[in-house]
């Protein structure tokens, strides 16, 4: 049993793999249906990526039971980075 995890490692792995396959489906299958750039797909795969990042940080890396400062920094990084990238994508990518 791991000190810092709410869920067993294998459950976390299952969730991560599911999110990966969802992202994969979004990024590949959806492409067939419409030609040209798709903002929804781009933002979707990025958001899914950062959900996975937070899962890895808080579960595998046991930030979940770490001191509040570390938890805050990690959450800050995840949210800040995600918002930064989405904002850049949204504002710069004209189409």
């Amino acid at each position, binding site marked *: *049993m*791991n*000190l*810092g*995890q*709410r869920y067993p*490692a*294998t459950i*976390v*792995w299952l969730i*991560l*793999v599911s999110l*990966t396959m969802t*992202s*994969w489906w*979004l*990024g*590949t299958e959806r*492409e067939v249906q419409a030609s040209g*750039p*798709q903002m929804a*797909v*781009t933002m979707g*795969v*990025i958001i*899914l*990526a*950062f959900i*996975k*990042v937070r899962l*890895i*940080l808080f*579960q*595998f*890396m*046991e*930030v*979940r*039971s*770490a*001191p509040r400062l*570390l938890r805050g*920094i*990690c959450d800050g*990084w995840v949210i800040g*980075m995600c918002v*930064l*990238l989405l904002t*850049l*994508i949204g504002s*710069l*990518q*004209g*189409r």
Partner: protein
Amino acid sequence: MAAPSAAPSRRQTTDHVPGEVGIWVFVLGDMTVFGLLFAAYIVYRAQSFELYVHSQATLDRTYGLINTLLLLTSSCFVALGVGRARQAQNRSAARLFALALCCGVGFSLVKCLEYSAKLNAGITLNSNEFYAFYYMLTGLHFLHVIIGMLVLAFLIGRTRRGFSAEADLSVLESGATYWHMVDLLWIVIFPLLYLMH
């Protein structure tokens, strides 16, 4: 900093820093550097959108997916291994770290396949701006993977010898934290380079 020996309560506020504080300074710093590279990639991509989308289509997404699954699995093994080590099940822990190392080797093989396919097609770092980012981001990450595999090999050796003090477990956790970071970085690189369009 010592972990409580009693079973954690549901709240699990152990306030335990996994590994040395120094590794977290390094990990967060490294993540931030990569984050800035990601932001730069998006900015440049917006300026030469057609070029990037066109070049991105030449990437092998299957290789990328396999690599993602390999790293996620390796992280799972490492997390399980740390758990076993905490329960003094050293042989089991060492075996799990070895499985994680195998995943790392698998990742490296796929990476070499991917790179050689590109290079054989004449696509290098200088081919265009997208490929410059591609080689730089994946290459920098691959370097981290190689270092990570050395760290895992070290963990296997340490685990086999057993832990006599709390400090040893801290070293173990530090190594595990580094490896998870390697996984975490790829989780962002994959959709950024291979999937978004």
